[in-house]
């Protein structure tokens, strides 16, 4: 289960809306599995169907997390024309076994789809999301 504050959810959704129709991506860093620090990342692909963190930005952010004893608790990205469910490429490149993979869909202007998954060894398992104030 992912427990996450409404404030962080709002930030993820705002980022996804702002970058629509391109995919948005980023990280929520934290300790002991608790998502705390919102880090929007640049989508180096600037694409409506693909995302990739810029390699130098990723290096800086990962080193900063290391220095602060944090981990990437949440890795999020948006789908802009399809449902908030991991695509085949999402599964094949999933490389953080401890992360919650959050998917947001911006295909509907009025409705938000916010879902979370574990992706391990090619297996997707959706998990419950608990929103806290």
């Amino acid at each position: 289960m992912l427990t996450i504050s409404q404030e962080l959810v709002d930030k993820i959704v705002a980022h996804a809306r702002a970058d629509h129709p391109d995919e948005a991506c980023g990280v929520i860093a934290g300790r002991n599995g608790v998502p705390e620090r919102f880090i929007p990342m640049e989508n180096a692909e600037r694409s409506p169907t693909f995302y990739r963190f810029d390699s130098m930005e990723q290096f800086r952010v990962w080193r900063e997390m290391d220095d602060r004893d944090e981990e990437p608790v949440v890795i999020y990205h948006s789908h802009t024309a399809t449902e908030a469910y991991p695509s085949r490429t999402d599964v094949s490149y999933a490389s953080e076994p401890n992360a919650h993979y959050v998917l947001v869909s911006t295909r509907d202007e009025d409705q938000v789809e916010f879902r979370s998954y574990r992706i391990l060894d090619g297996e997707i398992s959706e998990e419950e999301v608990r929103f806290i104030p």
Partner: protein
Amino acid sequence: MAIEVRIPTILRNYTDGAKAVDAEGATLDDLITNLESRHPGIKDRLVDESGLRRFVNVYLNDEDVRFLGGLGTPLSDGDTVTVLPAVAGG
């Protein structure tokens, strides 16, 4: 010539859980061969027939080796090599 190699979570099953290991090599290519002899299986996760795997980022100190010399990048004693799987998807 000792070079510190920082290992990402997903590859720590090859290093008995270690976050960083030492290895040797005059180039990145040599270093990976040396790593393989110490941690069998790891090489295949880093390179394929065409070179560095596309979705693996390797950094020498603070630089992405793709902007240096790729697998031919020369290394020196005291360097740090960091491996990070690219975060990507569709």
